[in-house]
């Protein structure tokens, strides 16, 4: 790769079982799956309900609010696509609804990030089809 070609970041691929999630994200909505068989919810989206293995899954919007469970500040990248982002915060978020997920904490100075900080979802449009669910200080 030549120096004048920036390395692209790795992007999610849209699969049949995750398409509804990404379509909602594109419209700046955060949805998870609710099983119409057993009634329970799950994140991340899967082809089956991990509780009862039913394939009857519907989408349901969640609050997008939570707290930081843990985080690290990445100063040295492993994938060149993130070179211009350092230092950036890579975090585990505990959502109010009980799900746990990975995201970056954006629009928040890294030195202000701490375990337990209240955060809310921040939709980051990456391509016309793809919007990532990031988080920022609430």
């Amino acid at each position: 790769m030549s120096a004048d070609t920036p390395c692209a970041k790795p992007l999610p691929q849209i699969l049949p079982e995750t398409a509804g999630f990404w379509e909602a994200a594109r419209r700046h909505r955060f949805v998870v799956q609710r099983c119409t068989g057993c009634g329970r919810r799950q994140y991340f989206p899967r082809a089956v309900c991990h509780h009862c293995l039913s394939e009857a899954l519907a989408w349901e919007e969640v609050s997008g609010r939570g707290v930081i469970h843990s985080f690290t500040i990445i100063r040295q990248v492993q994938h060149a696509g993130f070179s211009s982002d350092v230092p950036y915060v890579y975090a585990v978020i505990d959502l109010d609804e009980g799900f746990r997920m990975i995201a970056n904490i954006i629009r928040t100075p890294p030195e202000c990030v701490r375990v337990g900080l209240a955060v809310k979802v921040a939709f980051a449009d990456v391509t016309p089809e793809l919007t990532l669910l990031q988080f920022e200080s609430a």
Partner: protein
Amino acid sequence: MSLKGRSAIIGFGETTFAKGRQSGGRSHLKEQCTAARLAIQDAGIAKDEIDGLVAIGPLDHGSSWSMDLAEYLQLRPTFLDTPYFGGAAGNAGILHAAAAIQAGLCRTVLLVGGSVSQPGPPAPYGVEDSVSFERDFDTPFGPMGDNSAYALIKRRYQHEFGAGEEGFAQVVVNARRHAGRFDNALLRAPVTVDDVLHSRLICDPLRMFEIVMPCTGAVALVLTSAERARDARQKPVYLLGGGQAIDRGMWTPAYGRDPSLTTSPIRRSASAAFAMAGVTIADIDCLQLYDCYTITVIIALEDVGCCAKGEGAALVAGTDLTVGGDLPVNTDGGQLGRGQPYGACHFMPVIETARQLMGRAGPLQVAGARFGLAHGNGGAMANQCTLILGNEIP
């Protein structure tokens, strides 16, 4: 039916570990073949007696490695396995082999792992060939491989238990102290707590000296039936108990069934191993705990039962965990002292346990050691496999 006392380690071998840039002329196959020869010679058996093969290939090689190594060495095993889930795979391979021996699928199993380390940074995980949920719901956020996964665990541990840095640094000090007296170790220079605390911050709160250095090397061992072991040249080291437990996928630490990043499945794998062996932590003379990072040693000490949850860092800071002390841990220097040859690191805890229990640890011998614990950790503390071994069957 239990695996207790039904199989035993009767030999082991290691190639000379080397840093990546000093690995010229070495190859994955050559490393593993050398380790295999040394283990077979050490056991004092003929190559043709090997009828089982457990082989762990280099990180970038597919799951046919045991077949390919069997072809290269012209072995004709009736039991083959390539456990492929990180650092728990070596101990799991021992359990698989022990079960196969007990079931009569084979009698004498060669277990081998190792690889050549390439100079430069490792390839990013989660980009090329990872499972779709890691690729789609983790990798887009720019993790720094294993480092960021373990950084999350250490940060959470320090938050929950108010642990400072001293216990973490002391893990490295102990590792280097042992490594300085162990011939096949690469990081032999002693360090102080201060040196560790002033090493470069890589992925905070992880510092450079808390992270293993990849290197080149291979190790092998021979496991056979307890009946066959009685005639062996070396003092048999019996498998007394084992257990495996997982609570999430390989890397992404977010999706755990168990909500805790700081209580690991070691609780369950160690309980199962102790129950099978019929011994307790008080009977254990030395522990070899998979130490890719300092935090793994601290959580493992807690979860195998050496101290209460949250007291591991204080235990390391306030107790002599070196040979001659109260509770010798990682008596060969571990990976933090020896370097981490991928594939070989999976078997390093069990081989050091065998070395101690055979009484062959030289200046690092734990006097009168009878029972040892060997622990393997895979992924970001996701997959755990614990073994209890003894030079007698209690």
